[in-house]
């Protein structure tokens, strides 16, 4: 994907900011929230845990950030044990929970200064760091306003800034863009991507396939407390995403049947037509070589083409194939996830 924000695959230059979990189990009453979770996140990479609501994403984040103890299994953050060396773990991580954790009655600046002091940066350094972060997150103008008056996007930015106060080498972001408008989401994506560029490890959970696709070096798909599959987005698409499709949109929708017949031989059973939008899709078995053939055949029938493209499989297809249900329950924030060029 050419507009990807990803930077590096893994790097030996980045210090020991790895995350590992072995055999993590957690049960709440009758619900097995996490079922034998194993994972390794390399330093300086972005890891996305992708799954629907209630799949166990937040529970795993809470265990890795020392807020919750696992029933069994071990986890290490920068080689510190999350149960036995919790305070050391806390000194190297930053956590942005599912809902912004900022104080409504304090100003943006006071919020960041408070966090800095609780990291024992010292008063002066905490102040300087707050100013710096407010600047970076475009909150300088609102620095002395109470958070109560902030918009949702501003709160998220402040929350993320608070997470970065002590420059942690490992960031945990639990659904960082849930509930944000598309513009704020794009802004946050840039911030997250920049973190990985600075050698920080980012562990993020999301319900949005596009988000994982854009940001993560490695994606794990979780459903009902189990990690079902793990890999780079390309690996996931290759294994379970189905075929790359040729999509054609014709100018005159009334000619859809004619077009359908002209291309039938190429697509066979996997050819689909969508009369309302004048679109036909067929598997691109021979890669790009099929494109001229499609043009030739439609031209022979004098059918005008308005759009012709190769559509790679998306993570939507992957998720559906692996879990049997879509990742997102609502579609309101799913703008542009089809990635049509």
């Amino acid at each position, binding site marked *: 994907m050419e507009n990807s924000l990803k930077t590096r695959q893994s790097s030996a230059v980045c210090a020991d900011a790895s995350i590992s979990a072995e055999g993590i189990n957690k049960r709440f009453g009758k619900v097995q929230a996490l079922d034998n979770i194993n994972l390794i996140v390399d330093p300086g990479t972005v890891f996305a845990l992708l799954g629907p609501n209630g799949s166990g994403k937040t529970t795993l984040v*809470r265990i890795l*950030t*020392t*807020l*919750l*103890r696992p029933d069994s299994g071990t986890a290490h953050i920068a080689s510190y044990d999350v149960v036995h060396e919790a*305070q*050391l773990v*806390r*000194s190297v*991580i*930053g*956590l942005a*929970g*599912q*809902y*912004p*954790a*900022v*104080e409504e*009655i*304090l100003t943006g600046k*006071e919020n960041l200064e*408070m*966090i800095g*002091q*609780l*990291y*024992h940066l010292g008063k002066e350094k905490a102040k300087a760091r707050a100013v710096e972060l407010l600047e970076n997150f475009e909150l300088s103008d609102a620095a002395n306003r*109470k958070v109560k008056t902030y918009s949702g996007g501003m709160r998220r930015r402040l929350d993320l800034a*608070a997470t970065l106060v002590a420059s942690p080498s490992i960031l945990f972001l639990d659904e960082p863009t849930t509930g944000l408008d598309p513009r704020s989401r794009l802004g946050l994506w840039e911030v997250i991507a920049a973190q990985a560029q600075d050698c920080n490890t980012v562990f993020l959970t999301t319900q949005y396939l596009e988000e994982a696709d854009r940001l993560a070096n490695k994606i794990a798909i979780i459903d009902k407390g189990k990690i079902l599959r793990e890999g780079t987005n390309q690996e996931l698409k290759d294994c379970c995403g189905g075929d790359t499709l040729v999509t054609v949109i014709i100018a005159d929708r009334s000619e859809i049947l004619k077009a359908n017949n002209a291309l039938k031989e190429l697509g066979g059973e996997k050819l689909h037509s969508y009369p309302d939008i004048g679109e036909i899709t067929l598997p691109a078995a021979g890669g790009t070589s099929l494109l001229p053939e499609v043009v030739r055949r439609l031209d022979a029938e004098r059918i005008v083409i308005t759009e012709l493209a190769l559509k790679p499989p998306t993570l939507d297809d992957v998720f559906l194939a692996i879990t049997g249900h879509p990742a997102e329950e609502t579609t309101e924030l799913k703008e542009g996830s089809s990635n049509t060029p």
Partner: protein
Amino acid sequence: MSVSSNISNAMSDIGVMTRRNMRRYIRLPQLLVFNALLNVVLLLLFNYVFGGAIRTGGIAYIQYFLPGFMVQTVVFGSTQTSVGLAEDLSKGMIDRFRSLPMSRTAFLAGRVVADATRYAILIALMIAVGSVMGFRFENGVLPVLAGVALIILFGIALTWVGVFIGISVRDVETAQVAGFVWVFPLVFASSLYVPIETMPSWLQVFAQINPVTPMVDTMRALALGGSVSASLWKTLVWDGVIILVFLPLALRRYRLMGQ
């Protein structure tokens, strides 16, 4: 990390958390204002409604009752600790605090210190309003200051009970009701409003044991004159017992929150 830097970090954390809670009182003055107003209203009602009907051995009811009323302020105050803490725990901020390398105790201690400051303000107000209503210290200023300090210490001890309840119920409404359950018997079945001798004998037994009684008796003696020693040591023992039981309990609850 050395022990001394641990301790200085913890002290700094308590300072930060205290300021955070104090700012809440300052920025949301309604809370403190209505709190103060409620106390003034109760002071007026009790003095003018019941005062005439309660025999207090020859002294004016306001003289008898105001030292106790100062104690009541901190007893009721501890229920607000439960509520404030339950509110904190029901919001996302607690996850942030728990994910920081800060002292575990500081989160709770910061609230206790802030509440002690609130008590000092409220008691000063009670004294001011009481003076207008005719209350006079008959024993000089120093004993009164010592008494106020003792009441605040008593308040700190009870605040740890409030902290424990707030952490245990973790829900604002429940915390409110749970607070009243233990606070009302303490306040009313004591020497605070009426002489204990007027109660049925079984209740007198409770009133004698009730930690509010020696605290009230101590303050009364310091304000009006009279022997302090018997009630003073009882009240100090109670402070110690309450803190030794409820501080570790509250800390343990806080630590076990993620289990």
